[in-house]
């Protein structure tokens, strides 16, 4: 299961709306880079995009014959900062759309929005928050892994919203499916991100220095804009389905012709929504509870792993991890 949306799944308005957001986000990232980054970073951005592309190709065996793959948005953010990550992930998707056809061209806007805007930015925010608490090397691994898990899920939720808004699927099917599946995929992403950062820290720890900190002032404006775009996206693609649409907003939607068979199909009259989860129904509260417990377990697991993976050393430099 991947988040790359092929052509034909989204309708015109979804593709256009997400396209506009992506263009704005990518444009901001490009402008920031042009203004504030030295030209020597540009080959690095190109090579990193190629690097992420190649990293995404590698098969991480899971169970039976299945395998997982890295998406890399968080890796890009931790290594190069949010704006560069936006450009890097967008470039990967554009190349995939134009040459390999495994990303839809028409739906490129939505794909860029999900994986090149939402994912990196959510990573960035979660990462920075956790970093403020855990400031050491191992804290960086923990922060990055949690950030990638969260970002994977949030991006999947936005993707679900886009599918529903297009009338392709129903919220109470696609939302739990996407969240459930990506809660698992996200763990893989978190693990791989942690392992890769540990591997890099082993040989070249200076590459892991927080780039975002040094550029903080100038990048803040850009980050703010990405945040606004994402909030707008969430408002349009997710919020209407996740909760009862306020009457005013619904009227606005109807005026602009955005009324959607899918929206009307959701039953808002029931006080609690029931989610169909793998064949049995869960009430909303129990879903939320399950979610919290699940998330908590993931955080604990990742925390423990981050402590184990890099043995503590006094002088702050990462000593060698077990031989790989």
């Amino acid at each position: 299961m991947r988040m790359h949306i092929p052509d034909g799944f989204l309708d015109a308005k979804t593709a256009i709306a997400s396209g506009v957001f992506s263009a704005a986000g990518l444009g901001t990232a490009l402008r920031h880079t042009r203004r504030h980054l030295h030209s020597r970073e540009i080959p690095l951005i190109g090579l990193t995009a190629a690097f992420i592309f190649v990293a995404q190709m590698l098969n991480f065996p899971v169970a039976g014959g299945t395998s997982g793959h890295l998406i890399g948005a968080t890796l890009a953010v931790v290594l190069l900062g949010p704006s560069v990550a936006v450009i890097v992930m967008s470039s990967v998707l554009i190349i995939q759309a134009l040459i390999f056809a495994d990303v839809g061209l028409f739906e490129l806007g939505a794909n860029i929005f999900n994986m090149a805007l939402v994912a990196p930015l959510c990573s960035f925010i979660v990462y920075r928050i956790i970093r403020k608490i855990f400031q050491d090397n191992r804290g960086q691994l923990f922060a990055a892994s949690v950030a990638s898990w969260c970002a994977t899920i949030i991006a999947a939720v936005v993707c679900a919203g886009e599918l529903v808004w297009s009338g392709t699927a129903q919220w109470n099917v696609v939302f739990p499916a996407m969240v459930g599946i990506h809660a698992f995929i996200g763990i893989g992403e978190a693990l791989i991100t942690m392992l890769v950062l540990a591997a890099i820290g082993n040989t070249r720890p200076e590459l892991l220095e927080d780039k975002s900190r040094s550029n903080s002032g100038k990048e803040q404006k850009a980050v703010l804009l990405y945040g606004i775009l994402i909030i707008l996206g969430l408002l349009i693609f997710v919020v209407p389905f996740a909760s009862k649409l306020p009457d005013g907003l619904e009227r606005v939607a109807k005026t602009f012709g955005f009324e959607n068979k899918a929206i009307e199909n959701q039953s808002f009259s029931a006080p609690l929504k029931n989610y169909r989860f793998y064949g049995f129904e869960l009430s909303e509260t129990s879903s939320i509870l399950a979610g919290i417990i699940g998330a908590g377990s993931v955080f604990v697991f990742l925390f423990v792993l981050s402590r184990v993976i890099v043995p503590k050393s006094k002088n702050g430099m990462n000593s060698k991890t077990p031989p790989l």
Partner: protein
Amino acid sequence: MDHSMRHDFLDRFSRLDSPIHRLPSALKLSFAFALILLVILVPIHVWWVSGILIVLLLIFFVSSKIPWRFVAARLLFLEPFVLGVAVMALFQHDGLTIFLRIVIKSSLCLLTMILLSNTTPFTEILSFIRRIGIPALLVTILALTYRYLFVLIDEAARFRRARNSRTFSSHRTKVWMSLASIIGQLFIRSTERSERIYSAMISRGWK
């Protein structure tokens, strides 16, 4: 690594000689995009439109001289992803119709893109998007990404071979750590290489 994808990287067919290949890229790109738009926007029960589009695609495919085996393989490789996402459409009122509609439309779009990317060299695609107003910085980055994609794939393959000759365990944990290490190495080499590329660029006048 997924070997069925490797062949595509050779950009093997984009410089064949056929009536389609010889068409100007701007025409091909605009046409492909228009085709995709039509496929997506026209409701599928307007059968005659869908029919014409399919026939057109087949004509282009045949006159492009791309080996049908290649196109079929590519389509088969990508189809599961379409099906995987489309499966979710089944669980609703009218689900089967929606599912079929999506699968057919998606496959047509796939075919269009496969044809396009294999009859148009990537450099021409890049100059086209530059001409329609995509920022130069992005085009430069895309060009660099494309150029070094093949180089990095080779590097990753080399690291992998080196590791495989030293590792005897196929245990999942070891494989994950090994792959992560390869990815880490790849990144480090990429940063080093980008420094040298920068030097090469400025030594020929880039600013």
